């Protein structure tokens, strides 16, 4: 039982790592939508440069 739990945690962690870029992008898009983070350069919510 403990073994299965450990294996489960490791597998989920591995899945999270592989999907990391996708997850990060989704999170960022959400923050941009909520106005909590600046958007990519050139977009309406961009605040880089002058």
């Amino acid at each position, binding site marked *: 039982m403990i*073994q*299965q739990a*450990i*294996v489960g945690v490791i*597998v989920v962690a591995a*899945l999270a*790592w*592989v999907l990391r870029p996708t997850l990060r992008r989704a999170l960022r898009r959400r923050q941009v939508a909520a106005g909590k983070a600046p958007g990519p350069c050139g977009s309406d919510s961009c605040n880089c440069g002058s």
Partner: protein
Amino acid sequence: MNAVTPVLQTGAPRMALVGNPNCGKTALFNALTGSRQKVANYAGVTVERKEGSFTTPEGRRVQVLDLPGTYSLRARSPDEEVTRDVVLGRFKGEAEPDLLVCVADATNLRLVLRLVLELKQVGRPLLLALNMFDIAKHRGIEIDVDRLAAELGVPVVPTVAVRKAGTVDLLKHIDAQVVDLALAAAQGVSQGANTWHEPSAEEVRATHREADRIIKLAVRPPTKPDTWTTRLDAVLLNPVAGLLILLTVLFFMFQAVFTWAQPAMDGIKAGFDALAAWVNGAMPDGILRSLITDGIIAGVGSIVVFLPQIVILFTFIILLEDFGYMPRAAFLMDKIMGGAGLHGRAFIPLLSSFACAIPGIMATRVIDNRRDRLATIMVAPLMTCSARIPVYTLIISAFVPDRPVAGVFALQGLVMFGLYAAGILSALLVAFVMRRLVWRGTVEPFLMELPAYKVPDAKNVVMSVWTRAKAFLQRAGTTILSIMILIWFLSSFPGAPEGATEPAIDYSIAGMIGHWLQPLVAPIGFNWQMTVALIPGMAAREVAVAALGTVYAVGGGEENVTALMDTLGHSWSLATALSFLAWYIFAPQCASTLAVVRRETNSLKWPVIMFVYMLTLAYLASLATYHVAASLGWA
């Protein structure tokens, strides 16, 4: 501590290195920052932004940016645009540099002085570092540093990037400049006005004349000119001998990758086998042990084993680059590449693609013309990247007998060479179709400096190779490790029902996917285990080897990587093996390459075209190979 000044308040002062290509700028960057640098994950020439930091003798921390080499701020390629925009402080998301350090090859000052005169117009604090000062002195070039500084109106410091004490003067000057900057900022003195504008041809001539005037005043020409470069070029650029030498170098490189690496690879393999055996003995049977031995150790082990080959390949590429051979290779190849519609400069990105298509595609930024660049990007993944080596090695070792041919060459090495040649030829063919049939039109000029040959600096080479090896190991330790765990999971669950007769993997999720895709790949001779291995191979080509290991180890109950070769030898026909090799020459089996193409072309269209054309070629090539091999009775 001095009084806190605005410059120091806003963080470490930022310094940018600018200079002509081949001036030893990167060597100076390495000498200044040592290991404190953030190099992009990718290998290749200076195309990506490199940042580092160092501490001056007075204890100030300075950030350094290594900018792409250029002859003028008048940018002609995306690469040079980066340099221009950072220098002008227009680069989005990049802080303006507080200090510009123009790096010059002291043995070749003419063009860089013109650049200095242009940089002066920007109005930022500027410093000229005369790099390779020792070589200049050795050749009898006498540079009156004070006179040069006075005429240019810019501080001038001699440096020797490859020697430890060679940057002491530069650091002292940087310390002084930073104090000046801080004082100026504290007193609210604004920087000089930026009067730079794109120079016209007449203005270029005028700055040339000014540079010539200064050289006449401050530099005495060499008493012992560089005869080595002339003598070497007489052979290396000879129309016939030069091409033969180039081919020999490439051939030697691939033989070395295949044979020299063997002892080290055997050692690593034995190490992982011993580790798996130890875990098997130390742990009770169960799914956790299966995960560790079949998933993690077998999976990661089958990737790390290729480290020696990757190190050897990168050592060759970096040595040739530092030696100054790459532009010569471009010169020799220009007509041949031009025949395929590619630019001679495409040779360097394509050669880097032998290591990995990602740095290769990024290196295409040195090609100014958009269509030339796109054509190069589209064929770069056809070059045999190092991630294919594991797959090729595995299949060749399992199916090609290890016997000498003509007494000198190993048959296995020859097959490997053939696979590389197939990649190159198909790349030229695809480029020809794109550039000569689809896009006919203007031809980009071929115009590049042939730098003097230099003995590569051992420390620099070791550092560059280490950076690449580290990136590879990091990938093996993170992404590949994660994928291996997932594959193990997919091929272990759900387990076989009670009283099952087939191997356990037949009942797993991976088995189901493999069986489901089987009809599609049956015509090209693939079995479902191969299909399963190809799915994770999309993440990184080399993962397919580890996946095959997992699929067969789990399915057949075998526990070590060394047995994989024997397993494949028994369960695949020669026709299937050859078909698999043909597939791997063309298949778009690398999601990161597609992602880089998307980024570099800034459109979804090109990665999609790349994926479709490569997949089509792969399928057709495998189909043809399988059927020809089968008709020869190798099925």
